[in-house]
């Protein structure tokens, strides 16, 4: 099997890099929706390493966990987008750089 000799660590590295990309994305983007997409990226990275681990351990736990992650992600998306729409209703802009009426 060709993929047999792909070491576990490669998957982990890949997921680590994806995860970091997501993190950086959250920090640099200003559009909350995109920020949120970056969060999704992070979650997927996590899923990747979960599945990889599971595969190499011959354990189902990894896939189980990632299923739950997906479900949770779905729920978050629904709520998150709802909130964004609500705030958009109040003022036609959701740029996070302008939402700091509360500070100090």
């Amino acid at each position: 099997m060709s993929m047999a000799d792909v070491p576990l660590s490669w998957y982990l590295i890949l997921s680590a890099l994806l995860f970091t990309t997501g993190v950086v994305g959250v920090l640099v983007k200003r559009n909350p929706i995109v920020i949120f997409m970056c969060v999704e990226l992070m979650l997927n990275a996590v899923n990747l390493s979960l599945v990889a681990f599971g595969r190499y351990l011959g354990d189902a736990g990894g896939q189980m966990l990632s299923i739950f992650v997906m479900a949770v992600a779905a729920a978050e998306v629904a709520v998150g987008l709802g909130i964004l729409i609500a705030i958009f209703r109040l003022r036609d802009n959701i740029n996070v750089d302008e939402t700091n009426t509360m500070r100090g």
Partner: protein
Amino acid sequence: MELLPWIVPLLPLVGFLINALIGVRLGKPGAGLLATAMLWAAFACSLVLLGQVQAAPGKRLFSPEFVWFNADTLSVSFKLSIDTLTALMLLIITGVGALIHGYSMGYMSHEKNYSRYFAYLNLFVFFMLLLVMSSNLVGMFVGWEGVGLASYLLIGFWQEKKSATDAGKKAFIVNRIGDAALLIALFLIFRHFGTFEFYGEKGILTKAGIDTALGNGYGLVSTTVPILLFIGACGKSAQLPLHVWLADAMEGPTPVSALIHAATMVTAGVYLLCRTHELFLMAPGAMTLVAIVGLLTALVAASIGLAQNDIKKVLAYSTVSQLGLMFLACGSGAFGVAMFHVTTHAFFKALLFLGSGSVIHAMGGEQDMRKMGGLAKKLPITYATMFIGTLAISGIPLLSGFFSKDEILLNAFAGQAGNAFQWGLALLVSAMTAFYMWRMMAKTFSGEFRGTEEQEHHLHESPISMTAPLGILAVLSVFSGYLNPAALKAVAVDLPDTFGHFLGENAGESIAEVNHNTELMLVLASVAVAVGFSLFAWRKYKKATNGELLTEKQRQSGWYELAYQKWGFDELYNELFVRPGKQLATWLWRVADLRGVDGLVQGAGNMIGSLSNLLSRFQNGYVRSYALTMLVGVVLVILTSLLGRGR
């Protein structure tokens, strides 16, 4: 009847309590009568005690004691011990005191706070008696402080007058300086002797006690202790440099000056030294110090006395200088002589003060001699008695002052550490004494009246209640000298030294012995000086109708000015202590306290406040920077955990 010693001090105390609590109801003469009666009663008891003492074994008897306070080894009790020294003081205090009480009844008759006055007076006598009778240092200290209080109250008796209350305060505080030294002396003594008792088992003044103390390393402080005691004495007896309060103390009623600031309280210092002469004799250094200070005080005070115009001030400074002579005697080891002078001085100085009091009374409160003159005709009795007093103090032969002062001079010359120089200065003092006393007499009684019209109209001889004491005291000041007429030895009339014999051990026997010729020389010299200067002053001032010898211009001259300004001690102290002290205190308060100590506290608070403002910058409300903060946190946490993970 062993309670008798207690009765003596308690009588005036009772008088005080009654007068203090219900004195107002007793009314005018009542309060005074009560107080005076108490004193006479005390005098009587003292006489009885005197007899008992003479009979007692070792010429000393003790009262039952009442333990005051105690903690393990420390035990302090109220206990009285009477020996001849005490008995002498008792007689002086109660006797003179009684006379002055009587005198006051007349003198204060117009006073509205009549009963309070006598209450204070009794209180004073109580503490004074406690001072001289107590058998231990603490009890003595109680009396010591007590008389200070009494004099504070009496000097400030006319509390509306700021000058009076100031003087009272000054007296108390200056005394307190001495008291502090005295306290330290007490602590040292307790540290080495382990007791405060004078006599009895291991008493301070007993051979056994001193030996044990030396065992506990008393040797190291054997000079310090007497010096500290002496500083205490300086405070009470107005010696340099603590003499400044006595002159101001004249703000008080004149009888008070007579009793407290001439006859009794101020001699407490001398009493202390005589009482503890055992300790002093161990420390020659201290002795010389005492002698020097005494001599200096005598000179300075006398010189100041030359230039004063306030009749009471003259007497005050003469008191200071006389006290100086007494300390000189102590310093030269002649404690008995010092006590002898205390006695005679008590009589004639009280007499003089009371006399001046009667003059002031007649003058309606006027004290400035420049406004007097020619009172001899108006106040014959006063004049006569004061004349005698003055004769006595200026050392005219055959009066009390002559004998006591002569003894002092003798000891200054030939006593322990005595020398011609000392003698010379002492002679100078007596010369000045003679001069200013007669100056005073002349300015007051001779020449013609220089006061206002209605003063002249108002002039009258004082009532019998005031003149009677004058008479008695005059008699005393004539004859008390014959208790120890040693001076007559010079002219080969050898009468017994009753006084010294009477005191015996209690005032370390050390009468200087010199060969007959020198003694004769000395006596003659002092007689010459006394008589000479007296006559000189008397005739000069009789001639000077305006009562002044010096012209305005001469009065500007340095020496006179210096003397008139009392050598500028008050100003000096103001510059040296009072003003800097106030500045320091203000600085401590305004700067050290409010800015320094409190500033630190406030500063800490403000610092946190500003820190809070600083940190709140990061709380800028932007999601992304919050996220950044989180990331930073994450990175830090992960790095530390990885770097620090064991193995």
